């Protein structure tokens, strides 16, 4: 094994050497370069395009851009979401630096927003399987209870599937719900849902952009198998004070931002709270009146431009779910994250982003009755230090950096008066360190190549005890490790390769190869987000999950990027997929490793995407045809079986229509093949108990799922500085009774052995209304 790793290292370093030798190819054109500021803030994703041509680019995360042009005179358009576009006449005979500032335009916000993504980024970038979601797309899509929800909107994208109606969990290209890395300003979030998955923790007012990597995550990111969802929070304005908010049926929210020192520093604070429990105060019964059922979250961000070359920001998130029924039962838990980021320009070619990141997730359940008193605590804390360098020479960008992280896992501690002493699972202590290098390079005007390598190592430290088990799951040996002593380590080498071949000005063919690994695993007792779920690291017998993926895509835009379309195919091979022996107790089981099973999954699919970016009617259609199967010794007789979310067909249609400047309507329609489920094919009786008889895992299908949601927004006339709108949405417009679960019960008491199937449907037609304002 060590020999294989050594050989792999040699190969990797040889490859790195080749990369360094190769990327000294430069074109001979003139370079137009500079930065674009939005009200004084440097911003990524600003479109820079040469009018009348297909030449264009986007600013990077430091607001910088560069375009290679032949000598001549050009009209260059700079545009971004909600900001007035600007066209500059530029004559270029040598390298020219051009810095531009754009200003916000509220009146045209919606139109500008929808056109913001209209340039040919999807065609020109080397990214494959990457989806962007802008703030306004998020706001215009109708969702459950009228709460703008990035996780639910992202489920309307190709290759992304919901993990259950109303839930925020999602699966990407056949992966698991725990195989998605969710980052808010770089900080990992370990439970992205409020109220068992009903709402995501991401407040729409504080979200600037969501970017989902499902096919080829960059070398700078890793740690999860299937995808990375990067959520960027909004910077407060450096120029003016603003307040945005909304009052809805079940929640209200308020966001305030503005300069701390004009043009120099800004703040943003966004808060949200549900108030279902406030209605309970109207109840006659004191027990119900005293019940607490709510969630709240708080986002904040502070930005300071130290000077032209340094910018420091702090962003934080704190959220809690609270349910308390008198003093008898209660759950409380949530996430807290903090990101301190320093961005520095090192000379004219290199930028450095330094991050110090903290993330914490806790869950607490209390039961306190005359018969049972119990207190269960679980949690995970994570501290990260990360350095990202980016250097640009002409058409070549070199990104490199590293990361060191520490993890404290608290898988569970149960205190109860029923037992003499508490039951607790051993805490786990782990660390990861990674180095990465990535090169993005244009070979002429037709070929764009991005290749990189990520090397990481995951360490598990003591204090810990490892066990050896026999076939009966009995402990036969143990090794005790002292505090700080190395228990195990898991090195990973993850290559990345993206190739973009520009077939014409409006089309390209892309290829991506990627390998990802995962060393933190969610021990999930159910398909819902339960407070009893907990995270555990790779350990003694818990092996890292590994995935290899190949994606191929054809991207084509029409009518000057009015329409963008793509056809992507992918194949994923996933190893070490965790499962458990039948009947394994996942709750506070110190010897869970004895019951682990390792399976292999594969997934392949075809993803079609057509989006209309401009005009009164905008929206998109996404369709996924896919298959995902799993094989695991000890399950289904070791034969391949479809995973639960193996939905052959998955279709989403999203349409947004501007009836007038002030009146907008939108609708979504989703359809998918029913989940793969296991039903009994016979029954028998043992000791008086009825026993269901199964012959295969997931051999049946739930009924197909489809649903339409609709929404409309009326924007009132602006009074002084105040803009407001009334938003009405309807979830499940035609009241489709989709099956959430099927169970069986006797037809009648006199004939207990004759059963009928009962379908549980979750959400009927649910209207919602909210009043939103901004000033």
């Amino acid at each position, binding site marked *: 094994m060590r020999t294989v790793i050594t050989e792999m290292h040699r190969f990797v370093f040889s490859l790195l050497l080749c990369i360094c030798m190769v990327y000294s190819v430069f074109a001979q054109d003139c370079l137009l370069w500079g930065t674009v500021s939005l009200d004084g803030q440097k911003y990524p994703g600003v479109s820079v395009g040469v009018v009348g041509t297909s030449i264009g680019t986007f600013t990077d995360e430091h607001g910088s851009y560069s375009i290679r042009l032949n000598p001549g005179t050009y009209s260059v358009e700079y545009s971004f979401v909600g900001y007035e576009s600007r066209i500059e006449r530029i004559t270029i005979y040598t390298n020219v630096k051009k810095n531009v500032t754009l200003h916000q335009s509220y009146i045209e916000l919606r139109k500008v927003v929808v056109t913001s993504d209209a340039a040919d980024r999807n065609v020109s970038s080397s990214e494959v399987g990457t989806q962007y979601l802008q703030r306004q797309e998020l706001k215009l899509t109708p969702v459950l209870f009228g709460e703008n929800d990035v996780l639910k909107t992202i489920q309307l994208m190709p290759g992304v599937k919901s993990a259950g109606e109303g839930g925020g969990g999602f699966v990407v290209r056949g992966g698991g719900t725990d195989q998605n890395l969710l980052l808010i300003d770089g900080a990992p979030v370990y439970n992205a849902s409020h109220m068992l998955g009903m709402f995501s923790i991401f407040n729409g007012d504080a979200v600037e952009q969501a970017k989902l990597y499902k096919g080829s995550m960059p070398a700078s990111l890793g740690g999860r198998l299937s995808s990375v969802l990067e959520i960027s929070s909004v910077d407060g304005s450096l120029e003016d004070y603003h307040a945005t908010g909304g009052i809805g049926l079940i929640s209200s929210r308020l966001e305030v931002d503005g300069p701390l020192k004009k043009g120099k520093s800004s703040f943003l604070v966004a808060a949200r709270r549900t108030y279902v429990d406030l209605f309970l105060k109207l109840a006659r019964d004191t027990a119900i009146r005293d019940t607490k059922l709510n969630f709240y979250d708080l986002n904040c961000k502070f930005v300071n431009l130290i000077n032209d070359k340094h910018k420091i920001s702090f962003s934080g998130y704190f959220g809690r779910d609270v349910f308390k029924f008198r003093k008898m039962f209660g759950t409380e838990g949530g996430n807290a994250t903090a990101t301190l980021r320093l961005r520095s320009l090192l000379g004219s070619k290199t930028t450095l982003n330094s991050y110090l990141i903290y993330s914490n997730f806790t869950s607490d359940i209390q039961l306190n009755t005359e018969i049972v008193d119990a207190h269960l605590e679980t949690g995970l804390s994570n501290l990260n230090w990360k350095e990202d360098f980016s250097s640009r020479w002409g058409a070549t960008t070199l990104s490199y950096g590293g990361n060191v992280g520490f993890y404290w896992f608290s898988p569970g501690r149960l205190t109860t008066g029923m037992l*003499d002493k508490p039951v607790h699972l051993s805490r786990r202590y782990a660390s990861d360190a990674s180095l990465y290098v990535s090169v993005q390079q244009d070979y002429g005007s037709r070929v764009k190549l991005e290749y990189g390598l990520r090397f990481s190592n995951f360490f598990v430290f003591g204090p810990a005890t490892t066990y050896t088990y026999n076939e009966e799951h009995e402990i036969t040996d143990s090794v005790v490790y002292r505090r700080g002593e190395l228990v195990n380590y898991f090195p990973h080498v993850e290559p990345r390769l993206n190739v973009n071949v520009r077939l014409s000005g409006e089309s390209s063919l892309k290829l991506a190869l990627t390998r990802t690994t995962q060393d933190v695993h969610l021990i999930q007792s159910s398909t819902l987000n339960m407070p009893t779920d907990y995270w555990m690291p790779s350990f003694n017998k818990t092996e890292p999950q590994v995935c290899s993926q190949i994606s191929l895509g054809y991207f084509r835009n029409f009518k000057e990027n009015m329409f963008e379309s793509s056809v992507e195919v992918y194949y994923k091979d996933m190893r070490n997929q965790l499962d458990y022996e039948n009947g394994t107790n996942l709750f506070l089981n110190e010897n869970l490793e004895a019951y682990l099973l390792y399976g292999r999954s594969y997934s392949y699919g075809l993803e079609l995407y057509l989006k209309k970016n401009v005009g009164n009617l905008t929206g998109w259609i996404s369709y996924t045809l896919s298959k995902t199967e799993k094989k695991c010794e000890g399950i289904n007789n070791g034969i391949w079986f479809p995973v639960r979310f193996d939905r052959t067909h998955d279709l989403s249609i999203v349409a947004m229509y501007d009836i007038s400047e002030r009146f907008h309507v939108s609708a979504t329609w989703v359809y998918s093949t029913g989940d793969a489920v296991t039903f009994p094919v016979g029954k028998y009786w043992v000791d008086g108990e009825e026993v269901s008889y199964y012959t295969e895992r997931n051999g049946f299908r739930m009924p197909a799922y489809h649903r339409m949601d609709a929404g409309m927004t009326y924007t009132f006339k602006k009074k002084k500085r105040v803009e407001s709108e009334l938003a009405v949405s309807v979830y499940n417009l035609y009241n489709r009774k989709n099956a959430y679960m099927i169970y069986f019960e006797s037809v009648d008491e006199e004939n207990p052995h004759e059963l009928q*199937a009962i379908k549980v449907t979750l959400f009927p037609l649910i209207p919602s209304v909210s009043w939103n304002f901004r000033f």
Partner: protein
Amino acid sequence: MIVCALVSCTEVMDDFSVRTAESRLVVDAHVSSFTQTATVRLSKTAPFLNSTDVAYVSGATVVLYYNETVLSLNEIDTIPGTYTAEAVFPENTEYRLEVRTADALVTAKSYMPASVRWDSTSVVIPDFAKFYTSEDSSRLYSVLAYMTDPGNQTNYYRVEGYKQDSVKFRSVTDDGYFGGQSVQLVTSVYVLKPHDTLTFYLKSIDKQAYEFFNTLETSNSSSSFFSAPDNPTSNLEGDALGLFYAYSADSVSIVIPED
């Protein structure tokens, strides 16, 4: 889940059907020092949705082996497919069952541990009982039963609760959380009336029986949120479904008092 409960509804699926698998032999067997009986029921699996006609297997040869004893079980004339024998079955003993039918040979082993006794019981009216209303004198009661685990080894228990003769409660546990400790093992809430009688059985079983009942409890339902459905883990060898288990037991009865 709370919100789900508030907005969800149910509907009978008239067009639902599942295929029926080829029927298989089922062995439902136990031997007990508490009842001093050994009982084996032989049948075939039935269609899942409509199993009004269960096929029983008659004419089999059923033999029980323990220590130096070989005991044949005889089929009851009036109950086809049911084979029984009575004896003083010793605890701390391994039992082996052999079943021969016209086309199958099924064997199984089970160890009968020493019995563990209940310590005490009590009845409590929980605080939340006021949320239950009834036209008669029924109300919610919490019935508590306590035992002390011997602690000398890993022990496995199956607990059954009966109101009069109908089963109210079944559960299975090992002593992983309370080895050697006193523990409140039954904490169930029932709708009962004064003078109702509840009887709890504490069956001491072996690991294989525990695994069968545990997997039956946790994994056998097709509508569980908590696990993928599967067949319970059987200790039978041969082409058959079911379980053979030996158990010792203790019982305790509680009469619900007047308020």
